[in-house]
């Protein structure tokens, strides 16, 4: 099949998915819109996992850490704004007298934004570069990152006065004086986020179809050969994972905007593994599949927990088994089988 057609068919799928997401708020009750926003915040995370896991073969079970960096940064800023001039309520309860040093810079919005976008790189890049240099990869990397996300949860819960402990940070509603908890603001935010997501998806699509994407696939399939060809694979892997971490952090910040809370459970080990299933279900190498999967799994979670509270974990567990055993290429692979696309591997 000619490349030109495949490219067009990607744009057709893109238009269908984003068209539906664009029209959705019009046809649904207003209280649903923030929920849609919440589901889509995970689409950013899933997008990052598609890049790092699907294309580069790095399974990081620590995406929750970076989701948490984005989420906590924004939540700290919003909380300070909500409680100014007093201290945030949970600090008062834990008898903290003075604003902790780490909180001071979060009084500035621009610092918070920089923190969301840059801090993940500053943490992820040096750490993973060293790890990849040592050629720790695959399962060991997965377990190491899982352990780190568990550690983070323990740390957050343990420092009640500085982080809100197990209850997390909540009870804030204004962003720079704008009431973001109102229905109208939330539907505006929804469109803003949808636009940002569309940009990220398009960039990602071009990124993975570029020569850089080819190197990633090569690293995933035969890393030693790529290394022998003279590439610094550790550098490429660390850079790729950093991009993925920034996306997770953006997702975390979006999550806070739409839900108005963040707790350690949402960034912990269990949540981190759950994020993987979004990418796995959509199809590890499918950029659009990730968006679709994040939205539909989020929607299913709400629907199932409303009607059969017991059913959700059975469903999620079954989904993990299904995508690994039967559908390694996810939904995108399933669609590809119907279309008999000859290029189901590389086509995103």
């Amino acid at each position, binding site marked *: 099949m000619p490349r030109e057609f495949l490219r067009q068919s990607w744009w057709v799928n893109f238009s269908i998915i984003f068209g539906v997401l664009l029209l959705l708020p019009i046809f649904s009750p207003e209280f649903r819109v923030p929920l849609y926003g919440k589901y889509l915040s995970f689409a950013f995370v899933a997008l990052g996992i598609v890049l790092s896991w699907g294309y580069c073969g790095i399974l990081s079970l620590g995406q929750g850490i970076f989701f948490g960096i984005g989420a906590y940064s924004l939540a700290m800023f919003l909380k300070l704004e909500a409680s100014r001039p007093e201290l945030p309520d949970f600090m008062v309860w834990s008898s903290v007298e003075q604003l902790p040093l780490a909180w001071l810079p979060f009084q500035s919005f621009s610092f918070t934004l920089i923190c969301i976008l840059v801090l993940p790189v500053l943490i992820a890049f040096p750490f993973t570069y*060293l790890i990849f240099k040592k050629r720790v990869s695959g399962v*060991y990397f997965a377990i190491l990152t899982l352990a*780190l996300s568990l550690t983070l949860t*323990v740390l957050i819960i*343990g420092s009640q006065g500085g982080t809100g402990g197990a209850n997390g940070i909540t009870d804030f509603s204004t962003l720079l004086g704008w009431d973001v908890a109102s229905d109208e603001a939330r539907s505006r935010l929804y469109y803003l986020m949808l636009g940002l997501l569309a940009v990220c998806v398009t960039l990602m699509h071009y990124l993975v179809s570029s020569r850089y994407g080819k190197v990633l696939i090569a690293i995933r399939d035969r890393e030693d050969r790529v290394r022998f060809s003279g590439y610094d694979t550790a550098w490429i892997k660390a850079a790729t994972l950093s991009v993925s971490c920034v996306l997770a952090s953006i997702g975390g910040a979006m999550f806070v905007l739409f839900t108005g809370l963040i707790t350690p459970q949402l960034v912990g080990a269990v949540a981190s593994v759950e994020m*993987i299933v979004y990418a796995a279900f959509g199809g590890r190498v499918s950029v659009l599949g990730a968006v679709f999967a994040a939205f539909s799994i989020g929607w299913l979670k709400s629907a199932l927990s409303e009607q059969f509270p017991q059913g959700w*974990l059975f469903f999620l567990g079954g989904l*993990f*088994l299904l995508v690994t055993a039967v559908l390694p290429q996810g939904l995108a692979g399933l669609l590809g089988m119907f279309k008999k696309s000859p290029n189901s591997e590389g086509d995103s």
Partner: protein
Amino acid sequence: MSLEIFWMQLFSGVSYTAILLLMSLGLAIVFGLMGVINMAHGELMALGAYVTFMVANVFLTIFPKSVDTYILFAIPIAFLVTFLFGMFLEWSVVRWFYNRPLDTLLATWGLSLILQQTYRTVFGPQEVTIPLASWLDGAIEPFTGVQVPLNRIFIIVLTLVVVGVVYFLFFKTSMGLKVRAITQNRAIAETVGINTRQVDMYTFALGSGLAGIAGSVFTMIGSTNPGTGQLYIVDTFIVVVFGGVASLMGTALSSFIIAQLQTTFEFMTTSSYAKVLLMLIVVVILYFRPNGLFSSKVRT
């Protein structure tokens, strides 16, 4: 630091070593020797704990007079049940994922979610506790001011027995020889006539059964809820990875080091900071020795 505190500290470290070792021994076999990432290992421990709970209840209702002996029956039954369940898991799920470690990780994670929800549906979301047998309740005092709880001593002895049996199985029987042969080179092992399918199944089942024993022991020191397994799984993996995969000796030493560090840090700071410190130390050491402290050369 006074001498009493030192002894108490040492003992609590040793008893924590026993618990960690019991927990990670099964995983050291399943993950270390077979290379299977079983994220549902914690749920197998929970299964052992629930089996113990049921056995204790059976004793309470049917043989209330001999209720004190329930633990002696519960441990073998827990082993047997999880052993059989492990065989079933290997046959139904795990065997389809050999040589796909990352997929195994995700599939068994799914399995663990399903098991957790099953426990929640069957036993309810609340914690279940079992009263400790009266002969294990109490403490002895070897020196004045040093209290040593009896149930901890029981756990230490049990761990020694289990480790001894596992050592015997792996290094003195033909089954163990086959397992080690497969670990070193699966293809050649198959060529010389070892039934690798069968050995895989029994090895996995043995690892699961050991998790069942660990779970049974947990009921003596704490309560059980559907999420219990998830609490321990990461720690268990860390012990195995830190000790060096495919080295049972390494697992034992790593349990000891991690337990001593954890109890010492806990004494100096709070338990959550102790855990964070410990994790950071493990990560730094793993950076310098990526194959664990006591790695042996294994072909993959």
